[in-house]
């Protein structure tokens, strides 16, 4: 059964890529009109980017449309109200996502396709440069309108898919444990167990100490959540491609959880170190206490920024290499072709690096969280420690 599944997957993936290639090439050749911009759908490993280069470049030269790499990259790493999959000719192939707005009149729930890419106004709201804005009755933008935006954006949707995947994996592994109790693990079960034991023995135990078990569920959830979302971010097409862990809101929430758990579990000695630093003359407390308080908040902020910056930087680098193809291609078709070889080589290399980073950042976030938990529950003997 297992080998059959593998076979099917090994056939499915190339055929999927081939389908994309054929769809792209066919439409491009039939349609000589202008593609509005060369959103390359950021495929790092498949071939169609390179192969379609010549045609795309021809279009670019015909229309002399400028490729704005910065805008393209920022559009990609920012959140969006629809899930853009591909642009074929004039047609944007994208999945509309639900928009949920709350204002004084109540909730407005509708699909983002109703905005018609900024052309339509609905319930007094309009899509302006990818952002939802409220309009006055005369049609001008109301800067002071108060509404809350709970839309299922691209990042939220991608996170849901990643979470569903995560739950599916973990429940199947847990089921495996229930069925084959005390037997040797194998396959996926074994891979997950290796990671779980790694988190337990290399992260939780050394940094927290003998009370580590209490924090294990959070640390494991944190690690696998970040890891899975990082990996989904590296998949260039649907259902990946969103920049979930490279979004500051996501890392902010993760860091908040770490901060709250640290604060709840802080013992007498933890608070003592902040508000009554032991072994320090009282005169210096006025200096030290603010520093300690800043340090308390500094820790989760560092966590938040590290993950956000690392993942976003990775996405920017990968997209930058691809944009190079089109920037050079706009100057000269053959130069673009030449650069594409280098670009693909570099992007492949960077993708491997990003795989490492995906694991590393999940590990670092978990490790630092567990170190903070460890410092919160550590029992200090003041005479020894100072």
């Amino acid at each position, binding site marked *: 059964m297992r080998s059959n599944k593998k076979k099917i997957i090994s056939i499915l993936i190339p055929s999927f890529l081939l389908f994309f290639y054929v769809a792209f090439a066919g439409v491009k050749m039939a349609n000589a009109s202008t593609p509005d911009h060369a959103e390359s759908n950021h495929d790092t490993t498949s071939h169609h980017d390179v192969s379609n280069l010549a045609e795309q470049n021809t279009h670019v030269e015909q229309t002399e449309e400028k490729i704005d790499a910065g805008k393209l990259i920022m559009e990609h790493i920012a959140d969006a109200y629809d899930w853009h999959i591909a642009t074929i000719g004039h047609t944007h192939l994208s999945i509309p996502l639900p928009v949920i707005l709350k204002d004084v009149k109540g909730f407005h729930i509708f699909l983002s396709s109703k905005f018609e890419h900024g052309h339509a106004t609905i319930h007094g709201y309009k899509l302006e440069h990818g952002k939802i804005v409220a309009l006055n009755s005369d049609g001008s933008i109301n800067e002071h309108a108060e509404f809350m*935006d709970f839309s299922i954006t691209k990042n939220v949707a991608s996170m849901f898919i990643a979470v569903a995947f995560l739950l599916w994996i*973990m429940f199947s592994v847990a089921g495996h444990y229930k069925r084959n109790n005390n037997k040797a693990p194998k396959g996926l079960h074994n891979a997950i167990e290796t990671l*779980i034991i790694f988190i337990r023995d290399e992260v939780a135990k050394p940094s927290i100490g003998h009370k580590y078990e209490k924090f294990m569920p959070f640390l494991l959830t944190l690690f696998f959540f970040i890891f899975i979302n990082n990996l989904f971010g590296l998949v260039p097409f649907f259902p990946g491609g969103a920049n979930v862990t490279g979004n500051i809101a996501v890392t902010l929430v993760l860091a908040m959880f770490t901060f709250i758990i640290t604060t709840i579990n802080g013992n007498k000695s933890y608070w003592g170190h902040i508000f009554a630093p032991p072994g320090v003359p009282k005169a210096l407390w006025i200096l030290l206490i603010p520093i300690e308080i800043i340090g308390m908040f500094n820790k989760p902020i560092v966590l938040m920024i590290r993950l956000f910056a690392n993942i976003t930087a990775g996405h920017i680098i990968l997209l930058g290499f691809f944009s190079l193809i089109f920037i050079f291609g706009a100057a000269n078709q053959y130069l673009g072709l030449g650069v594409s070889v280098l670009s693909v080589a570099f992007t492949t290399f960077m993708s491997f690096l990003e795989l490492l980073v995906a694991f590393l950042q999940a590990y670092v976030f978990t490790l630092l969280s567990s170190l903070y938990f460890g410092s919160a529950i550590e029992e200090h003997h003041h005479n020894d420690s100072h």
Partner: protein
Amino acid sequence: MELIKPGLGLLFWMTVTFSIVLWLLSKYAWKPILKSIREREDSINNALNAADDARKQMDALKSDNEKLLAEARKERDRLLKEASEMKDSIIAQAKKSADDEARRLIANANDAIEKAKLNAMNELKSQVAVLSVDMAEKILRKKMDDRNQQEAFVNENLKSITLN
């Protein structure tokens, strides 16, 4: 800048999702998984300990066996020694009793020979006496006709008797 401004919607959905995931995974995944891993580790440790104990027992058994074997060997040696001693003593005894018997038989034989010899001597003596008397009688009958001769004869006999 847009990039570092957390969106309210994403914050909300992220908090909700992460809380639910944390709860679901803690309850239905991490708890059974960690429990199974710990149980398996315990069972592996127990198995290793049991194997260790078994090995120790085997060693103890082996040394016991060796002790028994050594004792048995010692016992055998002792029995052999005893047996050989017994054999020697039996042989010696047998020899001694045989010697004694032989000596006794020889002594008996000697006694019997002595007795027979004495008897024979006595027989001979009495025979000789009878013969002598007979002879003397015959001689006497023949010689006693003559007086002189008688005297001569008696004197001669007397002489010889005295000498005897």
